[in-house]
């Protein structure tokens, strides 16, 4: 019995040992392993998004031809003199009298705040076509609102405080636009022919600002001046050829803001002032050092900056920004051939005049603005101050007259203020008081933030979804 058991056990052990050995020999330990790579979840690839494929200005359609005898011009953001004051000698109404304002024409737009420019009886606007998902430079007749032509290109956008928000800059020969995703386009304003296009994101590695581009281009001597960010802080592009004639380096890696470039002359030197995300900069506009940084400061650096700098004296600039940033007054100083910056005032929005979105107006040597929502007790009211001391507010419109983020413009010695719910206010304003002349609800819309444009007695205004034209000439 014992022997037998032993034999059985021995045999079993040997058999098991041989079997195990063979198994071990032929076993492939990694045969069941799979590699976990991206894409096993079958998620469809997002594909090339439309904006990387955008061919700037690729499509064009002419609807009709039209000639106008009008010669009024509102050629860029804040007008020809970049002060937001219409200087035409046309008498404009003080009130609507017994009749309500008549809308001359209106047109539906893509959601946003892009505003028109007016040039010789034609209206130009860089719209966003939500249906075609494209930026469209549209040309309308000023008198009747008929669309004459449009030039467009595909850009994929999701609404974020609307989509469009820039104004073109126009001269006799050129119209330059910047799209929401930093596509610069230059066309012939008469026939809409495409001249050139630059994709700033592709070319300069620009980070598209929060809520998309807000900067309006500037044309000086047939050169388009564009603030960039990314690999260059500012560029000058020859309008005729599209060639970049000068380029400002960006040593501190400042970013594009919603503010626009303001040309100033100080100490006999022309320069471009720009409030970037990171600081304020002055760039030479002429001479051999054209395009070079003359001065810069990072003492005032809001995280979001929409208003543009306002010239309030010789070499004296008023800069403001929303979202708690407040305002600053800076004075340029020239010693020999170098420039430096002196901060005269800097304060929180509740302490003095400020603005979140619209650029204040310097009119008759007084500074006018609508206080931002964090502007203390005067929030959203129309206010005035003497630029020699921006912290002292001379008057406020009144608690009943709050205007939100709406635009305002001076024409014929009057302020035209658009409340962001679509109510147009006509007011007289001086250093001593605010006189409301009339107000009327023009549109039933939302977020009327796009700047106003006035030429030849026509006022163009928009809310988030449509643009209307009203005749404000005195009959």
């Amino acid at each position, binding site marked *: 019995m014992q022997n037998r058991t032993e034999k059985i056990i021995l045999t079993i052990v040997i058999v098991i040992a041989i079997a195990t050995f063979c198994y071990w020999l032929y076993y492939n330990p990694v045969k069941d392993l799979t590699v976990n790579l991206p894409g096993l979840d079958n998620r469809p690839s997002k594909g090339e998004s439309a904006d990387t494929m955008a061919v700037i200005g690729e499509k064009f359609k002419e609807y009709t031809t039209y000639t106008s005898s009008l010669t009024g011009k509102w050629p860029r953001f804040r007008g020809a003199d970049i002060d937001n004051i219409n200087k035409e000698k046309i008498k404009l109404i003080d009130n609507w009298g017994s009749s309500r304002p008549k809308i001359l024409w209106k047109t539906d737009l893509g*959601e946003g705040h892009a505003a028109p420019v007016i040039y010789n009886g034609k209206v130009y606007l860089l719209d966003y076509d939500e249906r075609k998902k494209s930026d469209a430079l549209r040309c309308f007749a000023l008198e009747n609102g008929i669309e004459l032509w449009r030039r467009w290109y595909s850009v994929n956008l999701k*609404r*974020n*405080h*609307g989509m469009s928000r820039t104004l073109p800059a126009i001269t006799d020969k050129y119209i330059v636009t910047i799209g929401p995703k930093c596509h610069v386009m230059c066309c012939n304003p008469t026939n809409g022919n495409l001249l050139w296009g630059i994709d700033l994101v592709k070319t300069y590695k620009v980070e598209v600002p*929060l*809520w998309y581009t807000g900067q309006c281009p500037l044309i000086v001597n047939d050169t388009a001046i564009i603030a960039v960010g990314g690999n260059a802080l500012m560029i000058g592009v020859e309008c005729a050829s599209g060639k970049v004639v000068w380029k400002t380096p960006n040593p501190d890696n400042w970013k594009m803001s919603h503010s626009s470039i303001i040309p100033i002359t100080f100490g006999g030197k022309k320069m471009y002032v720009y409030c970037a995300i990171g600081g304020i900069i002055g760039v030479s506009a002429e001479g051999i050092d054209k395009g070079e940084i003359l001065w810069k400061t990072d003492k005032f650096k809001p*995280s*979001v900056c929409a208003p543009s700098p306002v010239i309030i004296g010789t070499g004296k600039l008023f800069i403001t920004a*929303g*979202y*708690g940033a407040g305002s600053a007054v800076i004075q340029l100083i020239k010693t020999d051939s170098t420039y430096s910056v002196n901060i005269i005032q800097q304060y929180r929005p509740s302490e003095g005049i400020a603005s979140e979105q619209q650029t204040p107006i310097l009119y008759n040597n007084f500074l006018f603005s609508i206080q931002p*929502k*964090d502007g203390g007790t005067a929030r959203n009211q129309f206010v005035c101050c003497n630029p020699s001391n921006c912290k002292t507010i001379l008057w406020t419109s009144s608690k009943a007259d709050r205007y*939100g983020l709406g635009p305002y413009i001076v024409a014929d010695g009057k302020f035209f203020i658009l409340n962001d719910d679509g109510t147009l206010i006509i007011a007289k304003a001086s250093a001593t008081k605010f006189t409301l002349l009339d107000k009327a609800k023009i549109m039933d819309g*939302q*977020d009327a933030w796009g700047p106003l444009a006035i030429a030849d007695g026509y006022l163009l205004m928009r809310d*988030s979804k449509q643009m209307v034209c009203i005749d404000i000439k005195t009959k």
Partner: protein
Amino acid sequence: MKQKLVIALSLILLIGVIFLIYNDLFNGNPADSTNATEYNLEKLKQIDSSLICYNEVITIDLTMESVNALTIDSNSNIYVAGDNEIQIFDKTLQKTHTIKLDSSANCLAVFDNTLYLGVGNYVEVYTSKGVKLSRWKSFNSKGYITSIAVNKTNVYAADAENKAILRYNLNGVLLNVIGKKDKDKSIDGFIIPSMYFDLAISAENELWVANPGKHELINFTEKGDFRTSWGIASMQTTGFAGCCNPIHFCMLSNGSFVTFEKGLDRIKLHDQTGKLECIVASFSDANAQALDNCSIGARVHDLATDLQGNIYALDAKDKKIRVFSRK
């Protein structure tokens, strides 16, 4: 001789075995205390103390089993909904009275001495003294209202089941439904993985809604058109952590946002543009594991602010209101 040796050795081995068992039974550790597959959030919960810009100044202990919602009126009275009642504290933090309810309110808002409660799928209206004024018709049977906000013209109720905001006028007439998924209008709809769906009205009367599944806060126009949004997904303090955050938020009078995220249990302050300003509080204390236990029901059940800018957090774990004041 050999046999004796073998037996002796065997017996020694046997004694050894018994000793082994004895030792294991009385002196051994029951199990290894290290967890090879530990999932540790402590590192992410740790916050640079220089980022913390609020101090906890006071706490109010609540006598409730469950706490659901918190709001503060313009006179700094504090309203807490929980169990089947609402407890009201005045500005000296003394309890003034209690309103008994028929069932538990998930959320509440107060405007002009009128209380608006989200109860299940409908809204109930009470005076601040506790007189029931009305019960509004529910939008549909499956609704579940998780947050409510009122201004002088509208009542907005966030309905997590229907994934939409219900906009009523003050009389309870449904004006429209906001944010419902609609392909034709290219509205993506809210992504609401859990029953957290918060909204708030800013001092500027702007409607802000949390879209937790997309880690963003959305601003709508009064009528419900999309205006803007902000927010990114990130475990870092700059974004919102995990799969669905922020679950609660409220707004300060200057338009900045106070958000609470489950999972990492942190209250953060974002400026008006959504940029992180600082951290209000982080609940990464020694009892972190306890939080993990109850984190499915997040630690903070509601946030509120008063006119002075203090932040009130309704701590569901400790059943108290924690009040934070700016440093």
